């Protein structure tokens, strides 16, 4: 098929996905007990206070009217004001999004930096004690909860050795790199473990493939065989896995951002769900759905490059 055609079809799919996700979230939020007015007023509120605030926030309107307005907002990409923070949702998201993107981006890079060399070493030393040690590391990283890894790193490297700050973010890009290192490492560890196991398996499988034996028999240098024949073929499933893990990376960011006091969209999402801040949850969902769709799109492109057979 023509490239423009593929792209157009994909963009259409993304639009439909985002719409479905947004509508689901709209309905789910309304199905939850409680509303933003009672959360804003808390235990001290009288019934009159609650009624007044409901009217002010317009959450007392019929669900159909709210849905109509929501659809209009979706189409015009105008997310309205946060109910609990009383500032525009777009401003909140733009404030927070770069932090989370940087955090998850750093985590993905760190995960690759950890998993690829270790997978190679483990695959080449398959069955040896190095391989066993690496597999134990992977097992530990994947089985420890993210918040626990985060706290351990905080207590040892930040509060104990004082190599890193105890949470928060910096004032500039370079400071952010320093501040986000520990949280990114926290997120990266469990992802690295998953990638490592997958890549190790693929590498071992590919290394035993006939075409690799043929390339080696041809007299190609060992390094070239590994790069051109082994890695390139072993990569495909790992890249797919990495893409599929982007969603859980964002999920992990929710916890990491809370432990490390990072003002990203993960924490914003949690705070907003608890506050029943419909506007923020809806806006964030749309942004996240678009982001994840774009990642999947990019993933397909990368896979097509790695394996031309997939490019249709």
């Amino acid at each position, binding site marked *: 098929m023509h490239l423009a055609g593929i792209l157009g079809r994909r963009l259409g799919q993304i639009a439909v996905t985002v719409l479905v996700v947004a509508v689901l979230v709209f309905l789910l939020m309304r199905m*939850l*007990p*409680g*509303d933003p007015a*009672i*959360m*804003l*007023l*808390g*235990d*001290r*509120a*009288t*019934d009159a*206070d*609650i009624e007044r*605030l409901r009217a*002010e926030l317009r959450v007392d309107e019929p669900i159909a009217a709210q849905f109509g307005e929501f659809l209009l907002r979706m189409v015009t990409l105008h997310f309205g*004001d946060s109910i*609990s*923070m*009383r*500032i525009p949702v777009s401003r*909140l998201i733009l*404030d927070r999004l770069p932090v989370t993107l940087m955090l998850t981006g750093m985590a993905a890079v760190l995960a690759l930096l950890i998993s690829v060399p270790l997978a190679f070493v483990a695959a080449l030393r398959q069955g040896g004690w190095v391989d066993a040690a690496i597999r134990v590391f992977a097992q530990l990283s994947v089985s420890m909860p993210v918040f626990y890894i985060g*706290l351990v790193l*905080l*207590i040892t490297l*930040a*509060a104990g050795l*004082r190599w890193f*700050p*105890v*949470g*928060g*973010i910096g004032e500039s890009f370079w400071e952010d790199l320093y501040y986000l290192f520990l949280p990114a490492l926290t997120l990266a560890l469990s992802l690295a473990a998953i990638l490592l196991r997958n890549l190790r398996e693929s590498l071992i499988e590919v290394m035993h493939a006939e075409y690799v034996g043929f390339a080696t028999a041809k007299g190609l240098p060992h390094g070239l065989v590994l790069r051109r024949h082994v890695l390139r073929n072993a990569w495909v499933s790992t890249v797919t896995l990495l893409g599929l893990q982007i969603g859980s990376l964002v999920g992990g960011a929710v916890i990491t951002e*809370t*432990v*490390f*006091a990072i*003002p990203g969209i993960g*924490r*914003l999402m949690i*705070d907003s769900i*608890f*506050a*029943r801040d419909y506007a923020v949850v809806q806006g964030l969902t749309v942004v996240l759905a678009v982001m994840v769709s774009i990642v999947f799109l990019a993933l397909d492109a990368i896979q097509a490059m790695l394996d031309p057979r997939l490019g249709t």
Partner: protein
Amino acid sequence: MKRRDILASAAALPFLSALSTPAYAAPRRGGTLVFARAMDCIFLDPTQTSQNADIWISLNLYDTLMQPTVDGQGLQPGLAESHEISDDGLTVTFKMRPGIKFADGSPIQVSDVKWSLDRARSKEDGGSFAFLLAAIGSIETVGTDTVILKMARPDPTILQAVATFNAGIMSEKLLMAAPGASMLEKAKAFADKPVGSGPFVLTSWRRNSEMVLSRNPHYWKKGEDGQPLPYLDAIRCVIIPDDATRILRLRAGEAHLTEFVPYARVNELKQVPGIKMVLFPASQVHYFALNNRPTLNDGTKNPLSDKKVRQALNYATNKQALIQVVTHGVATPSQSFMPMSTPLAYSNGPLYPYDLARAKKLLSESSYPGGFEVTCMALAGNADDAAKIAALQQMWAPLGVKVKIEQLESATRLAKYNNNDFQMRTSLWTNDINDPRQITSIMAYYPSRQSGRTGWNDARTNELFEMSEKELDVEKRRALYKEIQERFAEDAPFIFGMDVPYPIAMSDKVHDFVQIPLGNNIFVNTWLDA
């Protein structure tokens, strides 16, 4: 009779000196204090907020005509240097300090005072706390320094009310100049970058991340060195929801002060060199609200509607054990439904001291002598709630009362509670005003909120409360409140719990920080060692 200047009560002095450094250390000027907070502010318009994170910071940004003293029991002059109340209680006259200014240097005029209080008491724009100023009929100004409140009815709490956060003085010109078509839109825009009359002014704000309050160079109050307060250059509030991380920040020297220290860690932090662990007396009570109605929302009969059952459960509750389990010993058993730091709180010793034999006897005389099952709502994931209910399960087992725990997240729990769809819940209250009126109106006076949603409706208590709202004489008011508290204790619509302090951990470089019983964080006198 003229009443003038109710000044800081002497009781405040020993409390203050215990917290500050020895008298020879003169306060040092300058420095930025880093305050690790659990929650961020949401809406910095004093009339439009109802959450503690805003209320507790508000007095630093918006000064009031009168101010609470640090012991939380009395009042001292604020923007008004003096006041007079007429004998009939219908005219309250404030004389403003000369030369007072907002943080942008513009003068605070009597018109700003009138406008701020009119807004704070209005039904449309006054928010949830407008009721505190509801007795004012109209406000007049005379000349450039006099503001007169013409009362629609005498209000014994009017001075307390003008010392409360929602009566913070704002600049009419600045707020009305903010963009927006309606008052609410203007308030939203203004509250994003507020300029007020308090000792500090907001200079930067990244939501849920960091907020910087800088010294207001125009603040009126003078320090010990004769120069204007505050001593600090700035307060940097960093928002860290995780308890453990906040403490790590403090221990790593990256924060000077942190709030909501888990009680389980109070004793540990007391041992840490360089850290002062302070338990500030609080107007905070923990209790269990009971549904007193004969039937529950699902139609089943409710044993808690029987007074003898409620009394039995109260006697079977070992408050000291509860205090150990939840606060590791730092709280005191409740002596009234209101915290003992509330003015006019009445005590005849701890309520319902642990007495299992008496509990059993009362239950045997009730309509449920064999026991029953009761369901208690708890906040999901809250360790304190889980500990409290686990303790009750053990304490009440000898009566044959089985406690079922229902874990819910906050909004669901509130929604059910507001619909009276509960049998029992863990509850917590903090006063916002230095007077028994707020807590009594919410917890004991049925018409305003069905007595804290318990459904307890005592005609005599309702009548006593209405009388107290008009009573200007402190002693007569005290007697009315004594009877209300006695009736409440006797009928026991709650399981009474404990008065709990505010646990604050700070670097020993921090001096003269106070969290008053109402919760307000007072930084005006705070200073830092070099």
